[in-house]
């Protein structure tokens, strides 16, 4: 168990900068998710923590220890690969025993540790089965067990659920979370799936284009996105963002319409570097009303539990139950009180009151 | 993973050594091919790595020109052996590819000829000389000795295993949905083969044919047994080249060797992606 500190990490591949001055502190025993679209640098970050890649600049600290120059086999890091990287030519037992065996542990001790780990993970009954052809959740458990047997201070998981079909992910997520609680290890989890990050992580680090955008608990990044990228990336669908101009006690929207702000929101909006701001509200935080944003409905998605309105200008609204609207007819959305997030159109940063 | 500088030095040294080992025999023959008689017949200290006075004399000589007072012009030039090599290899390749592709398709799609895979592997297992006697007797009986078609026929069957196995793995790999769609459209099985499958298999067919051609072109032994004079191939002709006055005609032989070596090297590099599959009978698909 240990904390991790990435200090001013830069990673360049030739001319391409994969990571820009990344600074991240991961607490001891924390489950943190690195979340972002593909190519955002999250896997590079993880590889640098694991020691599979060297940073171009900056330091990697485990607790007080500088491990930047330490080769990967000496970092004491458990790594769960995207496809689990189970040694398919070995049995479950041989997979579990691999780490201790490579470290030259005595036979009796290996046997004891393997049985212990197998009991802990409910793998006891299949110890002597060949590992090829096992089901995914067993493979996941085996991959974690194979690393955990070395008692690593840190667990790194590289999109372990991306090869699992959607219906089964919920089961896998629950299992992974409960495993993490039992092991109490620091876990770093890379994913592009916000649902995984939201449901499992203690904190989420959102990344884009090699830049760390925001770090916070799932609800923090959801409710208080630091910038336009996070606002749009999180949530399904993402936040509605309407560019506009501050005008007295309201915002005149670019596509037409005006949104009235309360005093606090006006104060917030005045912090913008220019007069241009972006007004944001979540699709699920609006109702149909008299004044607000009026746009024609381009199409209505009814998925049973919810109804999603797609309106012109990319605006979306989510309702708990069916609503009587017709495609092509204009609808006026009134954001709920307090739902407004106001961003600086110049910097993209959210303005706080 | 980062490697130590010592490893870089070691790797560079090892690769350099391998490169030298690979290239020396080739370069020496190339060098000999371009040396004039005074140089290729030199010994001891007079021997040089590179021709001091590069010339095309050796190439001119094997095509019948008298290039030096020291050696008499050739009675039989290289033109005919080159033709023999080309003709027998191309026709042998055609036989192997036609029979092999058809049989591979028959087995892959209809399960016909289940004896073929093993029979053809066995065919590759045996040293040709151990089974050459009856072929020679038959060929003499059928008047096929020293004819290009007689040679082609043997080439066709010797390389049939490669053509068959390669095409079989390609057919097995090909998704059948396309053929099934054509069948549903009302095409006959034969039309599906000629209009759908074979056009799709153009790439595999070409690379297999080139590999089979290389193998046929590379033969020495079979031509040595089955041709005597009219239709000897390049390697047989090359081995027989000598002059009563100078003995071995090193330069001329080197020039011929170069002519024989160039086509398969170029073709082989062109199809290098398919070589593993081809030379392991499709066991490895890379």
């Amino acid at each position, binding site marked *: 168990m240990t904390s991790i500190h990435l200090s001013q990490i830069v990673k360049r591949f030739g001319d391409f900068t994969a990571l820009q001055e990344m600074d991240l502190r991961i607490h001891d025993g924390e489950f943190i998710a690195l979340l972002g679209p593909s190519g955002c640098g999250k896997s590079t970050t993880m590889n640098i923590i694991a020691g599979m890649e060297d940073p171009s600049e900056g330091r990697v600290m485990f607790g007080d220890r500088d491990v930047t120059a330490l080769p990967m086999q000496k970092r004491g890091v458990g790594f769960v690969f995207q496809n689990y990287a*189970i040694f398919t030519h070995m049995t479950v037992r041989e997979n579990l025993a691999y780490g201790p065996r490579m470290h030259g542990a005595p036979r009796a001790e290996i046997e004891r540790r393997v049985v212990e780990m197998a009991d802990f993970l409910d793998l006891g009954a299949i110890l002597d089965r060949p590992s090829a052809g096992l089901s995914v*959740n067993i493979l996941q458990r085996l991959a974690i067990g194979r690393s955990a047997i070395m008692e690593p201070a840190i667990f790194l998981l590289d999109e372990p659920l991306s090869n699992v079909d959607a219906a089964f992910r919920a089961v896998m997520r629950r299992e992974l979370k409960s495993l993490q609680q039992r092991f109490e290890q620091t876990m770093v989890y890379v994913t592009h799936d916000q649902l995984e990050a939201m449901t499992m992580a203690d904190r989420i680090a959102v990344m884009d284009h090699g830049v760390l955008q925001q770090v916070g608990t799932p609800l923090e990044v959801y409710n208080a996105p630091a910038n336009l990228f996070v606002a749009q990336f999180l949530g399904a669908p993402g936040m509605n963002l309407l560019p506009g101009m501050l005008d007295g006690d309201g915002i005149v929207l670019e596509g037409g319409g005006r949104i009235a702000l309360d005093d606090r929101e006006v104060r917030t909006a005045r912090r913008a570097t220019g007069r241009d701001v972006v007004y944001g509200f979540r699709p699920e935080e609006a109702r149909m009303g008299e004044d607000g944003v009026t746009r024609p409905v381009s199409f209505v998605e009814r998925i049973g539990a919810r109804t999603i309105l797609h309106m012109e200008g990319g605006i979306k609204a989510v309702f708990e139950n069916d609503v009587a609207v017709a495609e092509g007819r204009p609808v006026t959305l009134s954001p709920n009180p307090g739902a407004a997030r106001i961003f600086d159109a110049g910097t993209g940063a959210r303005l706080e009151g | 993973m980062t490697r130590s500088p010592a490893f870089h030095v070691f790797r560079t040294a090892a690769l350099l050594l391998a490169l030298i080992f690979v290239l020396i025999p080739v370069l020496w023959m190339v060098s000999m091919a371009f040396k004039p008689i005074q140089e290729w017949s030199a010994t001891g200290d007079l021997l040089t790595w590179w021709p001091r006075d590069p010339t095309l004399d050796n190439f001119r000589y094997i095509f019948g020109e008298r290039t030096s007072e020291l050696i008499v012009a050739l009675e039989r030039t290289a033109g005919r052996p080159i033709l023999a090599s080309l003709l027998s290899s191309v026709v042998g390749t055609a036989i192997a590819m036609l*029979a092999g592709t058809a049989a591979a398709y028959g087995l892959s799609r209809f399960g016909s000829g289940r004896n*073929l895979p093993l029979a053809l592997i066995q065919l590759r297992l045996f040293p040709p000389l151990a089974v050459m006697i009856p072929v020679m007797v*038959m060929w003499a*009986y059928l008047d096929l000795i020293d004819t290009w078609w007689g040679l082609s026929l043997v080439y066709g*069957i010797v390389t*049939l295993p490669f053509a068959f196995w390669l095409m079989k793995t390609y057919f097995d790999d090909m998704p059948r949905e396309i053929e099934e769609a054509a069948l549903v459209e009302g095409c006959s099985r034969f039309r599906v083969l000629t209009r759908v499958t074979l056009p799709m298999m153009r790439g595999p067919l070409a690379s297999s044919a080139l590999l089979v051609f290389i193998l046929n072109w590379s033969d020495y032994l079979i031509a040595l047994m089955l041709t005597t004079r009219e239709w000897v191939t390049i390697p047989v002709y090359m081995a027989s080249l000598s002059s009563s006055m100078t003995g071995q005609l090193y330069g001329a032989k080197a020039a011929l060797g170069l002519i024989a070596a160039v086509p398969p090297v170029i073709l082989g*590099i062109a199809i290098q992606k398919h070589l593993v599959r081809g030379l392991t009978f499709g*066991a490895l698909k890379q």
Partner: protein
Amino acid sequence: MTDTTGRTLPAADPAAVARTAVRDAKDAGGGTSTRLGTWLTLPAQLLILFVAVFPLLMQLYLSFTDWTPLSGRNWTEAYTLWAGTWNYEDVFADDRFWGALGRTLLIVVVAVPVEFLLGLGLATLFMDEFPGKRVLYSIMLVPMMIVPAVAGYMFYLLFQSDGPINGLLSAISGQDVAIRWLTDPDLAIVAVMIADIWQWTPLMFLILLAGLLGVPQDQLKAATLLGAGPWQRFRTIVLPKIKTIIVIALAIRVIEIFKIFDTLFIMTAGGPGVATETISVFFYKIMTLELAWSYVAAAGLVVLVGLSVVAGVAMAFLPKPGKRA
């Protein structure tokens, strides 16, 4: 494959199973399609019959006679020269035959391991990225594409006692080196092996590199993270994964060396004396110089049966080819 606690991997796709079933029914039921299959395989079957099965029967027949092309009789009348099992008795008592077989085995035992180790070493180096890799890869494949007879001639030139190899050795050692590579009985076989190693290490390299590239990188990284060093990784991950490929590569080389003729014949013609006479050269010489065709027919069959037995035993012990480990 299904486990009580989980689900199967994607393998079982019901739609694919259904498609296969339909396809099988169609192929088995359709009389025209099976007939087409038979027609398609017919040329290959005829070729095998004509150039393999029939000749083998003829060879068996001739091996029990004393027939030679000089006996002035058509081969069909060879029974008039019936010899019973004499040829076979001669084969088993022929020291020259067993000597040739022994030398062939010697080349197998020396050249194949050297080719394997060099090929594996080279393939390992090619697992990394380095400048010029693609060009070097192509160059490394050149020897195996050289016509073997021409390769034989290359080494014939190199190993002349006044040739460049001795020239090189002289230059290095500073004294006049005149090693009789091709005419000294002990060295000639070494020269022949060097030529074989030169020509066929690339094949090992090619096949083994394909095998190494098939070893999942993730599993190697996982092994490294679990503390395995390079040698341990090779022994516990790489070797088990490329086992089948190694067996295929070795089998191909052993079979090919049993056929070795072209290179060797051009270099030494089996000489000096019988110093480099392999089984193929032995057959060739008895056939062309002594014209003892029925004897060669018998000896050839002995080799055939021997190889088949060895191959059969080997197959029984080996994993199925084509199946990846």
